[in-house]
């Protein structure tokens, strides 16, 4: 083991969210879910969850009403593209006031 007075600096890193900052700020388009179309939300039973599955950034929850973590969502739109009933629309960020998001 290292001698006591040595610090032995190395680039050993530990896991944590947001290494790249709040990547929600990268977003140009925001995914908005219409729960009247969303399969699990509509039926109240676990189903589909393609938005959760294909999200590259693990910002969609696997819940009956899938929630999107806008703090980190980069706005790629894969969830909207892959949603079978087309329940997700990508809306321009400028349409939002900014109070509830970043």
């Amino acid at each position: 083991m290292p001698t006591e007075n040595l610090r032995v600096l190395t680039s050993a890193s530990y896991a944590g969210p947001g290494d790249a900052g709040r990547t929600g700020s990268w977003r140009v388009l925001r995914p908005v879910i219409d729960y009247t179309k969303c399969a699990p939300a509509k039926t109240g039973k676990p189903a589909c969850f393609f938005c959760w599955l294909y999200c590259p950034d693990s910002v969609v929850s696997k819940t009956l009403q899938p929630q999107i973590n806008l703090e980190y969502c980069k706005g790629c739109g894969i969830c909207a593209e892959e949603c079978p009933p087309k329940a997700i629309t990508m809306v321009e960020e400028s349409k939002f006031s900014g109070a509830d998001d970043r």
Partner: protein
Amino acid sequence: MEEKKTTVLNLTDEEFVYPGNRACTGCGLNILYRIGLKAIGRDAILVVPPSCLTVMQGLYPITSTQLSVLNVTFASTAAAASGVKAALRAQKNDHTQVVAWAGDGGTADIGIQALSGAIERGEDFLYICYDNEGYMNTGVQRSGTTPQGALTANTSINGKRERSKDVPAIVAAHSPAYVATCSAAYPMDFHDKIKKALSLKGLKYIHAHTPCPPGWAMEERMAVAIGRLAVSTGIYVLYEIEGGEMRLSEPSAKLLGKKKLPPVSEYLEAQGRFKALGKEAVEKLQQEVDAKWAAYRRQHDVALAARGPQS
């Protein structure tokens, strides 16, 4: 014998990669990595050479991956993984999985010697190559797996002149324990192939087609759809090789029943990187794909006949 299939519903919602990482918007690797780690679990050590994945991991002292990762030099992935495994053997640890995870440059080009050596030695670890068909991390230069005709930063006028290396075939020629091809558009298939690979002893190799929006010049939202087109048009084939036998995986196997596949131009035209491809080149590619599938169908028919009428 058949493993229980993972579905979206029974796939764990435990996450092993933190959000807010440095992957580009719509990154195919990020999908593979996220789903792949669900299959690998926490009792594992990853070995990663310089690649997009290095950047995605994060900058010291924060990383997005919740598993142990050893970052190594570009050419040394498979050798460093061998070292990690040797240390675990020396410590009588037979449970911790070693998974090397490299890009196509790190696998097909600079890392192929170490990979070849590791397979020949019969090392016991899983090697995953995420193939986004170019040096994307350094700004989209051609790699050994860049397809013919694709525009890259250093084949920017006429596209890459040469054909791509068939890395899974090169690996298969070494007769490792397991070879499989996957795609980021089929995460369940990827998940279950990792599970299967990790249940086997010896070297396991998984080659995963990885859509890259900036590198392939396509809309970010289309990353999965275009990955799926590569499979449905028959350009990219999903298969497994075990005990020397090649078997098409479900997404590709179901194409056997189709008389005609969608034209490859659907896949090509969805990406800006193929815009230098002329009509003739596209037709030639279509013929190659048709010939490949004709051969698959013949093999399939022969196999069916050999199995007899009861099946």
